[in-house]
Every structure is written in structure tokens, then in C-alpha cells.
């Protein structure tokens, strides 16, 4: 196993194009070109929202980083940039290490498929080979404590049960980098404790954990470093306690 996971985010800027119903239509683009810009004026000056503005973050192995910030500060976008989902408009991202992202609990969960089938699908979506998922299925099943429910279709699951499934699969293959968004908001207390233990084990193996959350207590317990985002900019970095206070 590679021990030196790292993520380097270098002067990354992410703009979201905003296409309202008007702008997303060919008709408007056409009208715009046909009329020299008088009728479809909106099509020319495209509206964008700057989600991340010149953000630089360097994470080395062993870092447990909490991303803090108000709603809309760019936390999820930063996680997605780290996960490689969004390629930035400007700037670069280097990521080294096997990555698992738990950004959405219900990723790839098919309501009509059983828990077992969903374990396989989700594992494949995370980049595992089918044999790797099979090897780990028993362990994943045990960790979820869902028992017979795993043979039932996923539409019978509560959101907490879905979280158990998602979390168990994401963390089963010992990722070197784990990216999580607002985790544990739906797990029950028993499972949250169990999940926390697993995360701690993970962190001890010197991976990188990046966690976006509003929960200051949780961040203080799990993380060592903090990154404070405000309106897409990095406002503060440092030990988690200080960062939380500067918010």
C-alpha cells in the first residue's frame, strides 16, 4: 500500500455557468445570431457563479482536514474538485492515492435492486474490480448490520440504512484518500459511533481525510486541520480549533 497520499490544489477557480431555461435553448442562440443580438440579448453575456476563487490547499498523508464554511461557501465544490469530478476552469489539481468519495449517500443505489446488488454496483462505481467487491461483500454486509434487509430491495431502506450501506462500501477497500460531505447526518447513534471508529482506524493508517461539515463538535473530534471557505475563497487555514474560532 502506498503510504504517501497527497492532494495539491493549486490556484483553482471554478465557475458554474448558469443556464436558465432561456439560455439553454438553441432557439435563443439562433435568434441571437439571427438578429445581431437584439432579441436574445441574454445569450451573449453568459451568467456564471464563481464557486471557487483562486483556492490553494496542500494536503499530505496523515492530514485530517475539516472544510468549514457557510452554506454556499464552496465546500462541496472543493470536495468535487478534489475528487476529480469537476475539472477547474483555472488552476491544477494533483491527487496521489486511491480515493473514495462519499459525497452522496445514495450514489448508484438502485431502488429496485437488493442491498447485495447495490453493494456490487457501488463498489464498481468506486473503481473496484468485481472480484474485489465479492471478496469484501461479507465484511461489508457485517459492517452494515442490515442482516436480512440486504436481500430486500433498497426502496425498503430508510435514509439511515442507505447511509450504512454507502459508508460501508466506501470505506471497505481501505482508500488512501477519503472525501466526505456532511456525513453522519442520518446515521443513528450506534452506527455513528461505529463509523467514527472506522474513520479513526483509517486515519491512523495515515491516509487523508477531508470532511466538509457544519458540525463543529464532530470536526474537532475527527479533524486536526481546518480550511475555512467564504464565498469561494480560502479565509483561513490552520489547526481546526483556530479555524473554527475564526469563523
Amino acid at each position, binding site marked *: 500500500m502506498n503510504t504517501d497520499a497527497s492532494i495539491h490544489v493549486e490556484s483553482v477557480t471554478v465557475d458554474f455557468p448558469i*443556464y436558465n431555461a432561456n439560455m439553454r435553448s*438553441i432557439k435563443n442562440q439562433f435568434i441571437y445570431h439571427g438578429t445581431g443580438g437584439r432579441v436574445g440579448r441574454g445569450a451573449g453575456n453568459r451568467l456564471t457563479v464563481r464557486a471557487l476563487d483562486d483556492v490553494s490547499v496542500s494536503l499530505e498523508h496523515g492530514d485530517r482536514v475539516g472544510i468549514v464554511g457557510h452554506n454556499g461557501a464552496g465546500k462541496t465544490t472543493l470536495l468535487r474538485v478534489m475528487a476529480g469530478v469537476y475539472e477547474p476552469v483555472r488552476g491544477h489539481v494533483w*491527487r496521489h492515492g486511491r480515493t473514495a468519495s462519499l459525497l452522496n449517500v445514495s450514489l448508484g443505489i438502485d431502488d429496485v435492486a437488493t442491498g447485495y446488488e447495490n453493494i456490487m454496483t457501488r463498489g464498481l462505481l468506486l473503481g473496484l474490480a468485481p472480484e474485489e467487491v465479492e471478496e469484501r461483500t461479507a465484511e461489508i454486509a457485517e459492517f452494515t448490520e442490515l442482516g436480512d434487509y440486504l436481500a430486500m430491495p433498497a426502496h425498503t431502506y430508510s435514509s439511515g440504512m442507505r447511509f450504512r450501506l454507502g459508508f460501508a462500501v466506501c470505506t471497505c477497500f481501505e482508500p488512501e484518500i477519503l472525501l466526505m460531505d456532511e456525513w453522519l447526518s442520518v446515521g443513528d447513534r450506534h452506527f455513528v459511533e461505529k463509523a467514527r471508529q472506522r474513520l479513526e482506524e483509517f486515519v491512523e493508517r495515515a491516509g487523508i481525510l477531508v470532511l466538509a461539515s457544519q458540525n463543529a463538535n464532530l470536526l474537532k473530534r475527527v479533524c486536526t486541520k481546518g480550511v475555512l471557505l467564504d464565498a469561494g475563497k480560502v479565509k483561513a487555514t490552520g489547526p481546526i480549533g483556530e479555524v473554527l474560532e475564526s469563523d
Partner: protein
Amino acid sequence: MTEVASTPRLSQAALALFDLVEGARVTHLWGRLGWQDIRRRYRRSTLGPFWITISMGMLVGVLGTLYGGLFKVQATNYVPYLTLGFVIWTLVNGLITDGCTAFVGASNIIQQARLPLSVHVYRVVWRNLIIFFHNTLIFVVVAVVFSVWPGWTGLLAIPGMVLLCLNGVWVGMLLGAFAARFRDVPPIIASIVRIAFFVTPIIWMPELLPNRAVVPMNLNPFFHVLEVVRAPLLGEVPGAVSWLAMIGMTLFGVVLTFVVYIRYRWRIAYWV
């Protein structure tokens, strides 16, 4: 194993190529997702995906009788022709219309996990191939009933299918990206495909046209798409024009799509 999650624009071509190749490599992923789509549609139904076969059988049975009488053609010739036409058209239609939703329909996956985007297109192609193979069972029945045996010529349908699928891939890539950016692409495409169905010889035979020059068949790309698979299975060799047209379309489409993909691949995650 440093993975560069984003790089300067210079290497976009390499990234686009990697996306296509790596996507094709993870057969187990799109294979599974494609099957999942089919099973989701038929979960809890007793016959499951064989409903595809049955509804195709009913369609061909009714239309074969009706139009066979209308056009005054021999059922022995007409029904196998109509069956194959429908079966192949269903595939073509599915590849094009589902291709439009290849990326938009997978937005939750695209926004959560870093996967080659081409996976979603291969999934659509595979899903439609599964439907296609269910439908071909009807042709087998029809072929037995009307004792159609294409002989060795039938093997020409294999290169025909390969060309058809390659076109399905680039069409899915291109329309998928285009439809993610412009949301009224799917309805436009749907209406074009609907018209194409009537213009293309599927329920009618070119020989039935009173004046064959009226409709220049060779200008209709869909004619060639059908011809390279249908003709061999009926024991005829497709014309050289059809092969050339198919190869030309494939090359043109792949190059065009690749150029578009180099430029816009990284934007797709923002559009869906």
C-alpha cells in the same frame, strides 16, 4: 501512480482518448449498469425482459398482416423483411434517443464519482443491444416459419452490426454532450428520428415505389444503416454504396466527436 485530476488544456486530447479507452475497458461496470436498466424496467414482472420480445412479436404479426395486404406483397418476402426492419430500427432509434440522455440521465453518478464519461455512453449502447437481442428472437421465429436461411451471406451482418454500434457510440457521445448543454436537443432529435422512420424503407420496400427516382435512397443514411444488417440476414449482399456510406459515416463521426470531446469533455460535468 500520481493521478493528475486536472491538467493544462494542452493535454486535453490525451485525456479525451484516455476517457474513451478506459471507459471501454471497464466492461463490468457498464455491462452491469446496462442490465440494471433493463431489469429495473421489468422487475416483478413474470416474463421480465421477454416482454420486449412479445411486444415486438405482436407488432410484427399485426403489421405484417395489415401492410402485407395493403401493399399486396407475398408474406414470405414481406414479413421477414418487416421484422428485421423493425428490430434494427428499434436499435437505431434507441441508440439515438437514449444517446441524448446518456449524460443527463447519469448526472448523479457524474457529479459524485470520477469515472470516464464514455462509460455512460457504452451503458446506453449495451442496454439497447440487450433489447436488440431480445427482439432478434422474433426474427428467428419468423425465419423458421417462412423458411428464410441466409446462408454464409448472413455472416456479413456481423461487420454490419459492428459499424452500426460504432456509430451508436459516437452518436451517443455527441448527442449526449449536445443535449446536456442544450436541453431542447432531445425533442428535436426525437422528431427527426420519427420522420426518418417513415422515410426509410422499413415498413415499405423500395421496389414498391412507383418511380424509384422520386426518393434518392442513397442519400438517406438510415437506409444504409439498416441495409448492412438487414440485407445479409435476408441472404442478400448489401451494395458497395452502403458499406462505403457506413464506413464514411463512422470515420467522419468519430473524428468529429473526438474533436468536440477534446474541447468540451471537461465541461460536461458542469452541464448535467
